[in-house]
């Protein structure tokens, strides 16, 4: 009668240990990625687009309308003030 090879068993066990470490490493990496992705769960105005609103800034539109009504009076000064306030 022969016992199964001890060296083979050690080799198999080592394979399992390495495989487990790799699996744990991959899981940690994926958990880290899901943490990063969870941080990105923010919805801003730029994410909401409708065909009518796309690319239109309501405040800029209002400023342009007011400039038109005022015949562009003091336009440069006003745009400079707005640039500073919106910076």
């Amino acid at each position, binding site marked *: *009668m*022969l*016992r*199964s090879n001890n060296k083979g*068993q050690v080799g*198999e066990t080592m394979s*399992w240990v390495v*495989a*487990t470490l790799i*699996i*744990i490493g991959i*899981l*940690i990496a*994926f*958990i880290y990625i*899901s*943490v990063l*992705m*969870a*941080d990105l*769960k*923010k*919805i*801003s*105005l730029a*994410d*909401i687009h409708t065909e009518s609103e796309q690319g239109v800034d*309501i*405040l*800029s539109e*209002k*400023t342009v*309308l*007011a*400039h*038109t*009504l*005022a015949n562009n*009076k*003091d336009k440069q*000064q*006003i745009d400079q*003030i*707005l640039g*500073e*306030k*919106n910076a």
Partner: protein
Amino acid sequence: MLKKILPNKRGDKIISVYWFAVLIIVAGGIFGMVYVFYGTPYDIRELEVNLLINKIADCVSYAGRINSNVVSEGVFNKDFNLSNDCNLILTTDEWEEVQYYTKVDFYNINNANTPIFTLANGNSNLLTNCEIQEDKEYSKLAKCADGSFYSLDSLDNQYIIKILTSVRKAEKNVKV
């Protein structure tokens, strides 16, 4: 002579336990990933503050002219209420404290540093959060945004209007 190899039953048992341990680790990892991702709420406060700015801007000024209820014949109406006159319902039973703050400053174009008239509504305590909100550590505080535009009154007086809005609602938008 035929040699019989005895199977190592003890080793097989250990491998089976090991296999289950790996399964549990993988299942735990997948649970962790799903829990972390789906347990984090969507933060829509940035969207809310910008929508609030647009809504107030539409109320205060339309088609380049300031609402006549705000300024009439060059005189500002101190009774103008942002929530009532702009149809903004900012209080709900869900929250004990008001979770919003809105402020509209009117500046003369010749002195853009000091507002000549201010309309404010909501919880003014949120205003202090605005200065430190950029730091990620303070993401549980209120989100703030501001925007400025130019408008005229009925007498063609020129004004710069600055709108500041702040939304807290951290418990619903940030993982606590």
